[in-house]
């Protein structure tokens, strides 16, 4: 219904590029126990200390306290609690040997499973476009979130006591104000009134959603209808489906995999991709919340994205340099007995290739950090991890592909996006409703956020007026594409 006019006379105003210098942001270095050293040692009775230990660290803390204060307790008690403690440690180390990721600290775990490349030293830790307007939210290294709106002069800063180590942010669809934030210990849902002039919304505007054992939260996804929020934590085998208004959740438990790392809800709302730390991922069907298991051979599913109609899932596996595709043919609503596809098909191979450019040979390829598909399904951006090898330096880079889903699925190389010299892309996202094609927002390692537009005709129209794309004004902000001509030429293969 909505055909996008490509030939506008007035050029589209691309949102400003932002710059957050790494030096200006102070990360939180405070850990939970470090403040203890600043106070004098205080003699408390054993009961008080035990109660405090129970409150702070649960059963293990209590046992530890009792085992350590052997002078005050009967011998049998300290010995038995020491034995129980050792047994618990044995069990947890056995559990850890089954699922190695459980031994990581929560910061490391977020860095390991985040979609952001090298999350821990990133100035911009998460980024989210609003699904309907030109508003976006940026989570920074200092655990604050800033909201930018081109139509408003104020840029609210969101800070909350519990907002630590933000792994992901996402705006609620079909809503102007709600922003979900995945934090270290909980989920926050901010309600930022778009008409408010306040630059520091109080923490009363945030709903805190937490469930015991469900932390750190590494991934969140809103249902496209805005009714549910799902959240995932690598420590928890439950995937939580939240009814945010009622602050209630339904845990969906599947033990295999040992946790959930990454979630992606298909744009038509019918499926959810949930990857685990093990070589296994699941595709949930959202009507009755049943799932299909997809064991991978090599490693865990690192990233995935859905085609706009929700019928095709592209995903990548850690340790492999290819993109796989799965096709789901069943129409939503009619629960069909025919399961989806039996095996995933390889659609692209991104193993190392050398390009001859005027500036010298450049090696591109390798493992994939994340995938992003533009909302019209015509451009696929692939963030390549790169490698700092002693002999051969392969920078992280974004490769862009042209895609076409009908009549058959096609994936054609289109070009690369590179930043200023010495910077590498860390995070990328497509604008959800860019009128003239696709707009890729990239957050760079130096703290800069830039927007890379791709001007093209929509597939339906391109078939009528064939040939190359129309000449477009080259935006200033666009980083140096060393073969940016390919962005605008039809490949004739």
């Amino acid at each position, binding site marked *: 219904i909505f055909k996008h006019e490509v030939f506008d006379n007035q050029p589209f105003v691309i949102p400003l590029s932002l710059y957050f210098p790494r030096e200006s942001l102070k990360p939180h270095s405070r850990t939970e126990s470090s403040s203890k050293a600043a106070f004098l040692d205080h003699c408390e009775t054993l009961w008080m200390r035990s109660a405090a230990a129970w409150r702070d660290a649960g059963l293990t803390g209590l046992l530890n306290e009792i085992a350590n204060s052997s002078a005050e307790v009967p011998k049998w008690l300290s010995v038995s609690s020491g034995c129980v403690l050792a047994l618990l440690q044995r069990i947890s180390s056995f559990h850890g040997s089954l699922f190695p990721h459980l031994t990581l600290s929560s910061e490391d775990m977020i860095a390991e499973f985040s979609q952001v490349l090298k999350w821990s030293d990133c100035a911009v830790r998460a980024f989210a476009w*609003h699904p309907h307007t030109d508003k976006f939210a940026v989570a920074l290294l200092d655990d604050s979130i800033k909201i930018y709106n081109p139509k408003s002069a104020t840029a609210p800063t969101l800070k909350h006591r519990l907002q630590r180590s933000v792994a992901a942010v996402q705006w609620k669809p079909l809503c102007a104000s709600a922003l979900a934030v995945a934090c270290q210990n909980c989920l926050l849902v901010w309600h930022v009134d778009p*008409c408010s002039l306040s630059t520091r919304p109080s923490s009363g505007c945030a709903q805190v959603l937490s469930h015991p054992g469900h932390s750190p939260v590494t991934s969140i996804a809103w249902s496209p209808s805005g009714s549910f929020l799902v959240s995932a934590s690598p420590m928890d085998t439950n995937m939580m489906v939240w009814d945010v208004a009622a602050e209630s959740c339904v845990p969906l438990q599947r033990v295999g995999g040992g946790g959930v790392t990454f979630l992606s809800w298909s744009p038509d709302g019918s499926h959810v991709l949930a990857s685990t730390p093990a070589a296994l991922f699941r595709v949930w069907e959202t009507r009755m919340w049943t799932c299909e298991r997809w064991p991978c051979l090599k490693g865990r599913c690192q990233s995935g994205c859905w085609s706009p109609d929700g019928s095709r899932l592209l995903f990548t596996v850690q340790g492999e340099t290819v993109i796989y595709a799965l096709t789901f043919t069943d129409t939503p609503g009619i629960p069909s007995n025919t399961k989806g596809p039996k095996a995933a098909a390889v659609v692209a191979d991104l193993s190392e290739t050398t390009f001859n450019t005027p500036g010298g040979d450049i090696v591109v390829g390798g493992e994939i950090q994340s995938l992003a598909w533009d909302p019209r399904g015509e451009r696929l951006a692939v963030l390549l991890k790169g490698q700092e090898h002693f002999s051969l330096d392969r920078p992280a880079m974004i490769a862009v592909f042209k895609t076409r889903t009908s009549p058959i699925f096609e994936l054609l190389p289109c070009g690369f996006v590179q930043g200023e010299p010495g910077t590498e892309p860390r995070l990328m996202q497509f604008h959800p409703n860019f009128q003239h094609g696709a707009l890729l927002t990239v957050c760079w390692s130096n703290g800069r956020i830039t927007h890379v537009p791709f001007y093209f005709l929509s597939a339906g129209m391109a078939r009528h007026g064939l040939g190359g794309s129309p000449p477009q004004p080259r935006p200033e902000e666009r980083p140096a594409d060393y073969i940016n001509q390919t962005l605008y030429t039809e490949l004739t293969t």
Partner: protein
Amino acid sequence: MFSVEQSCWFIRKVICWRAAASVAWAVLLLPPSIAVFVIISRVSLLHPIQWISECVSLLTSATAIFSFILLCGVVLIVGFLNLEYYTVIPSIACSKIALLGQLLHPRQFVSSLVHCILGVIVAWCCAVTIGGRYQTLGYPCTQADGSPQLCLNEYQVILLLAGAFVGYCHSVLGVIHNMNYVSFHTVQQYKYLRFKGSLPLVVKCSAIQALYSVRNYLVVYFFLGYVPRTWICKTLNLQLNSSLHPLDTIAGLLDFSLLYHLWISGTFLLFTWYITLLLFRIFVTEVYSFPVQSSFTEDVHQCLPKVLTGQQPAILKFLALHDLALLSQHSPSRRSEVFSLSQPGGHPHNWNAISQECLSLLADLTQRLVAHHDTVATNGRAKSLSTGSDKKSLSSESSVTSGTEDVMTPRPSVLIKTPASVFLRSSVGSPLTVPFTPDLDSPFSSPALRRLAGPVEQCSPWHGTVQSPHIMRRGPKLWSTSTDSQANSLPSSPAPVPSPTPAASKPSLLAQFLQNRKEQVLQSDCCPEPELLDQIRLLIDSLPEASSQALFADTQSHIWALEGLSYLVKASFSEDQFGVVQTTLPSILSSMLVLQEAVDRHFKLPHASSKPVRSTSSMEDSSYKTLRFALRATLKTAIYRITTTFGEHLNAVQMSAEHQKRLQQFLEYKE
């Protein structure tokens, strides 16, 4: 009571079968739970082989089979009580006195009695299964003079009474926590998966609940234990063995094996009942797919449009609305039936019936909210006689009415306009609410009461006039009308309450406790007061935010109506071939916008936006406490769903200028 003949086809054909299936599953789950109980109750880690062999021999013995049959009977009766007492609209007591009324209601009394008896039966089964010293009620003993006699075995008595006590607690807590309320889950899951997911919660809840009940029971037994003991001795002509310690002493009760067995038995009892309840909830709330239209005339009454418009059993209406919400989201083929035209004539009967019903639901809620807001805005006064029949009458009339008239407000007319009255007419759904709650539940009812029930912090003028006139001066704005009318209304004000004075003279333990708590609060407050008045006030004081909860008690239906309408309208953008939706689009949009305004206003009231405390480890389904938040979110999403689908086309829809402006806000994502 329940009668199959009078009930509608749905109860007969669907609900009864679902209840029967849930009971059947509960019975099937009995053998494993008995086995686990036996293993846990006879646990002895030092002799594992003997332990296992004893358990196996016990499980295959005749007593085990007999107690299994007894327990089956218990589960059957519990299942029947579940079916009899369940409700989809919770009855929310707005004040302590209303809660007391609920607890003392004859129907509830019957239920408590039955639960007590069932508790005794289960406890007897437990006693027989545990065996040993709990096995029999009497045993031969020799008295001090050497003559052989039959003595009372106090261990069994204490276990049986514990069963009765836990059963009674279960039934009382069921009323306080609305345990009979059946909520519908927003996340659809298969029955087995849902059961599996809730099983750990059930185990945890029953263990914790049993712990608390046993603790309370021991206190009661310590003080009053001799009463049943001597009574049983007298009636059964048993003797007390004087050589043994009586159990209602500290030394007698500090028997860890006894405490363990009491706790285990209580847990087992609650577990079987909770499992029955859980299965009942899961089965009853399962989605039922109604046909949208039928080619056979005899089936027409079972079709969605007909079922939606009917009022009779609330569960039927709820399931129909749930089905509507689901079909509008997931099923294009059924949606096309909704949008279709009738074969001869070409009228969109299906769509008309569905949309009219949804819109009337929304209008009903809007009206209710507006009326509540008016009542609160005029500080609880005011509904004169005429307002009883006419909801829309302006609040300005109210200020003229005198206090005596206030008190005389006839309750029959009030009954009709209680929030849940539409559904309350069906006594099947929520039988408990009928005699007591409606008049207290209703935010509009008995204004005198409402005035008394004003928040404590406001220092309501009642106390002002009675106690210290200077307080009046502090809050003159709250009470702008003449004070003598209030003074008049004062002495007779407790009249509408069903017997406050006797209740006040012997307040329950709970009330006493709450009063103590409140006194602590009041010490820092401005109005000290005599104890009797305080007790009365405490009883009629409305619980904070209870009126708001009561107002939205049946709001799950409105949520589904909003979802159904918005998804259907969204789908009509591409699927509606005949444009049947276009004709109702303006009224849909305007009723949503009006409701949005009313909801926004309601949330500005005190207590309306305060979140209730979440209680995670309990079998009580507290989702009704958050329904108003869910409604607010759903409403906004529903409007956005329509505006994002239609976009600029909405400017062509005929609407009032104010609504246009409001809609523009939504189009620009500024709400």
